[in-house]
């Protein structure tokens, strides 16, 4: 096991009203090496917050997060890919990808070599010297992925990375993500609210309840790859999850 959440909760304090609002409650979850774990739930279920806690960018209000493998490991275990790419506009593609190694003190030649290799991996060769504003949305997300890989993390955390893309580009990027997941052997934790994306990509799906977010159910996805959006087994799984998710959306809208 790479990462373990034990009874994790997160509450926000709203200064204006003095209220405490629970975003997450008693989340217990293990992340296994090499899996493609999907966090699926309605908007506002706290799945992004959960991801930030895994990244160490937010501290849990209660419970514990364990990195059993980190004891003998090297540096930070996770890297994040943000929904709106979060690229540095003043850095070229190469400069963005090399940022992590740069702040960790990797010498220039070595980090640029590593960055070039990753730019090639995400199929952006030739775009090294371009600035983010000169790239399309899909290309930007490839840069963000390469940048996250540059620190050689064990876990990549994705926060709805394809939500801002058009349907065609999203399809292509889903295949790209699967290819890179296979080629690198990294563990992916992937937040989405799209059922079909969850069924197409995941090895395991964590279905979350509406706020406060809890784990409603964990489903293995035993379907063989390549999976098809139109496949019969895929459709059956999708239908079953849809019913479960529908209950949660209805509950979220009623509360």
């Amino acid at each position, binding site marked *: 096991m790479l990462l373990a959440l034990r009874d994790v909760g997160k509450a926000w304090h709203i200064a204006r009203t003095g209220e405490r609002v629970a975003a997450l409650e008693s989340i217990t979850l293990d992340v296994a090496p090499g899996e493609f774990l999907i966090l699926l739930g309605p908007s506002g279920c706290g799945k992004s917050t959960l991801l930030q806690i895994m*990244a160490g*960018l937010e501290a849990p209000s209660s419970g514990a997060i364990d990195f059993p493998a980190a004891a003998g490991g090297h540096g930070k275990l*996770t890297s994040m890919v943000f929904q*709106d790419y979060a690229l*540095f*506009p*003043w850095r070229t593609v190469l400069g963005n990808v090399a940022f992590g190694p740069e*702040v960790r003190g990797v010498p220039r030649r070595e980090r640029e070599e590593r960055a070039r290799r990753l730019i090639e991996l995400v199929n952006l060769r030739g775009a090294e010297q371009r600035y983010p*504003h000169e790239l399309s949305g899909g290309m930007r997300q490839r840069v963000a992925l390469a940048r996250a890989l540059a*620190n050689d993390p064990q876990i990549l955390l994705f926060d709805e990375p394809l939500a801002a893309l058009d349907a065609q580009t999203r399809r292509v990027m889903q295949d790209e993500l699967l290819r890179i997941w296979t080629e690198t052997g990294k563990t992916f934790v992937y937040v989405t609210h799209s059922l079909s994306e969850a069924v197409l990509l995941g090895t395991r799906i964590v279905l979350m309840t509406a706020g406060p977010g809890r784990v409603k159910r964990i489903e293995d996805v035993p379907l063989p790859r390549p999976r098809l959006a139109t496949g019969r087994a895929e459709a059956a799984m999708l239908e079953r999850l849809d019913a479960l998710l529908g209950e949660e959306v209805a509950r979220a809208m009623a509360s």
Partner: protein
Amino acid sequence: MTASHWRQIASVLGLLLLWQILVQAGRINPLFLPAPLSVLGAMWEMTRSGELPWAVLVSLNRVAQGFIYGAVLGVLLGLIGGAVRWVEDLLDPWVAAVYPIPKSALFPLFLLWFGLGNSSKIITIAVGVLFLVLVNTITGVRAINPVLLKAARDLGASRLQIFVKVILPGALPNIFTGLRLGAGMALILVFITEIEATKAGLGFLLWEAFQLMDTRHVFVGVVTFGLLGVATTWLLQWLERVTCPWIQRSN
């Protein structure tokens, strides 16, 4: 050259020509409005005698020193104030109090404190530049998308690295806005500080000519100030292009 360019050139040349003709025809008194060619002649004489280049040099020295002191301090305080909450709390009331004061109104105070020499002029210019750069730098730091700070932290950047590699470049576009406004302010202030208590500089030259009712030389001063304004704008635009190649310009 587009049609638009030709119209612009025609507009300038046409008006100058009309002006020249009206003065030569005796329809305008050259004591009030000397002809363009006679102003150009006076400029050439003063350049050959060394009077004009010397005046420009004296004024530019004051402008450059005041601008650099004000800009450096403004950027530093602005970056730290924009990034660190308690520093901002210390700065805020002073900015609110001093920003609205026309900086020329502070010149008499600085004359009393720092004497008639160069320092009182340079300090007046520096203060004028400082506040414009400071306010714009703080705005620039605020305008940085917080998710960029989060990404930098996630990739392992320390607080200092975030400051140098994210906050500084992120605020640069607004810093340049402050510098452009500051450069304009510096030229205004060098003129005002050279009216009194000096015997050199472009402002002195202009004001002395006015007191002698020498309109030709007043015009020489006005035109030269205009040229300095254009030159500083170009210099800053060039600097911005070199340091911020990622900024997309709409024009």
